[in-house]
């Protein structure tokens, strides 16, 4: 009985849905507060993001006439399932290295695409021109940023010659963080840019452009289904920087207080870097974003891979 309940507990309570969700919403508030400070205003109180989710759960869910009901309702759940599993795996391999299995890095890479996939399915199912435009833009963006994203993840794989998280973490404990090399620095830079696009943050929030295509893929979502999408985004905000820390910045050490403090420091530096870029840049056009990702960013990613193969 316990053997069955353990994975459920891991997935739903501790490193999975609840834990990542609550922490993610807290850091979502940090994001809004820092943005407010940059714009020299007070910003929302600390409970704002929880209240937003609570309010959305309280509201009516409208399913638009003529939409595909099944895909419209299940799309947010697909995204939430993917990100809670990915968040759970990233936490668990760092806490207990023995749970790591062959290919878990590749599994996490796939699971991190699921939220974008959910947006595409939901947008296409909702039978609204704005949602359709948003879905098509999201699809284009996924094709644009996934290639450099996967390439920079492979730099870690090439260096350690393993697709197991545990090996990558132990390699970094023995040889120092992957960040302290030329290829590592380039890889982290490319990872951060791709992270902005994955989170739908401002220079690349093209699929969700609020002032342009009224929320894009989310335009027809209301109530609890919208709350699930917002929660998914908040969990991405926690899971993606942790993925970066695990791969390039020396992993997560939770056994000592010093390790936890270092983790918080690393996480906050990444978060504030992301927020600074987000709140000081205007939105790009879809063709500009495509050129940016398949031009300089892909070039940097390839350079990082070549440097890794050369051993720099």
């Amino acid at each position, binding site marked *: 009985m316990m053997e069955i309940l353990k994975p459920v507990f891991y997935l739903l309570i501790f490193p999975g849905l609840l834990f990542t969700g609550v922490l993610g919403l807290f850091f979502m508030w940090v994001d809004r507060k820092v943005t407010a400070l940059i714009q020299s205003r007070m*910003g929302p109180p600390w409970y704002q993001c929880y*209240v937003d989710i609570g309010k959305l759960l*309280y509201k009516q*869910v409208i399913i638009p006439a003529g939409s595909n009901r099944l895909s419209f309702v299940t799309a947010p759940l697909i995204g939430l399932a993917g990100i809670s599993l990915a968040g759970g795996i990233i936490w668990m391999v760092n806490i207990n290295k023995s749970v790591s299995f062959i290919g878990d890095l590749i599994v996490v890479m796939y699971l991190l695409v699921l939220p974008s996939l959910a947006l595409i399915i939901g947008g296409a199912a909702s039978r609204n021109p704005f949602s359709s435009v948003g879905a098509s833009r999201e699809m284009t963006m996924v094709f644009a940023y996934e290639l450099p994203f996967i390439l920079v993840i492979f730099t870690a794989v090439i260096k350690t010659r393993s697709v197991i998280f545990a090996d990558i973490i132990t390699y970094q404990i023995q040889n120092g963080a992957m960040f302290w090399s030329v290829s590592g620095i380039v890889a982290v830079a490319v990872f951060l840019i791709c992270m902005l696009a994955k989170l739908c943050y401002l220079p690349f929030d093209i699929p969700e452009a609020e002032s342009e295509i009224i*929320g894009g893929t989310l335009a027809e*979502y209301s109530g609890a289904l919208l709350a699930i999408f917002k929660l998914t985004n908040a969990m991405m905000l926690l899971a993606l920087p942790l993925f970066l820390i695990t791969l390039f910045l020396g992993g997560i050490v939770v056994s000592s207080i010093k390790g936890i403090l270092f983790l918080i420091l690393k996480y906050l530096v990444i978060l504030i870097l992301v927020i600074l870029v987000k709140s000081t840049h205007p939105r790009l056009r879809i063709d500009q974003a495509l050129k940016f990702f398949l031009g300089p960013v892909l070039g940097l990613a390839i350079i990082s891979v070549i440097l890794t193969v050369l051993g720099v």
Partner: protein
Amino acid sequence: MFSILEKCFKKSIWVYHTNASACNGCDIEIINALTPFYDAERFGIKLVGSPRHADALLVTGAVSRQVCPRLKTLYKSVPEPKLVFAIGSCATGGGIWFDSYNLVGGVDKVIPVNFYIPGCPPRPEAILFGVAVALGLVDKKVVAEYLKEKGFPELVHERPVAESLWAK
């Protein structure tokens, strides 16, 4: 559990603003109220692009006949529970167009309105104050009071009229 979620509603109002044949003056003031200077986000107020995400509709303008069916559709497309704010003199009662032939004259003739914020145009402070009153953040300045009829003679002479006449 449900009451907690109900309380959440007042702490996070996402607004959608719409122009129902207004002269654009009130719209500029609404946008002004949402700028960093007034910082509506500290009350949890956020501007959203889609009526599906909205909790409150900010409607400006005396509704013209062309806008009328669109406004009804817009009201239907906002999920329950929802608030409607009529902003500006035209929206509250038609303003100077109260008897115009092609304007309905007031938002409340088309959709149910919860709160009125008069002014031509209302200042951004007035809009924020109105929303804050609606959310229960500040007390109302004027409270509706029902006067009891005391009787005319006692008010004037402190004695019944007949008695004062006889005293002379």
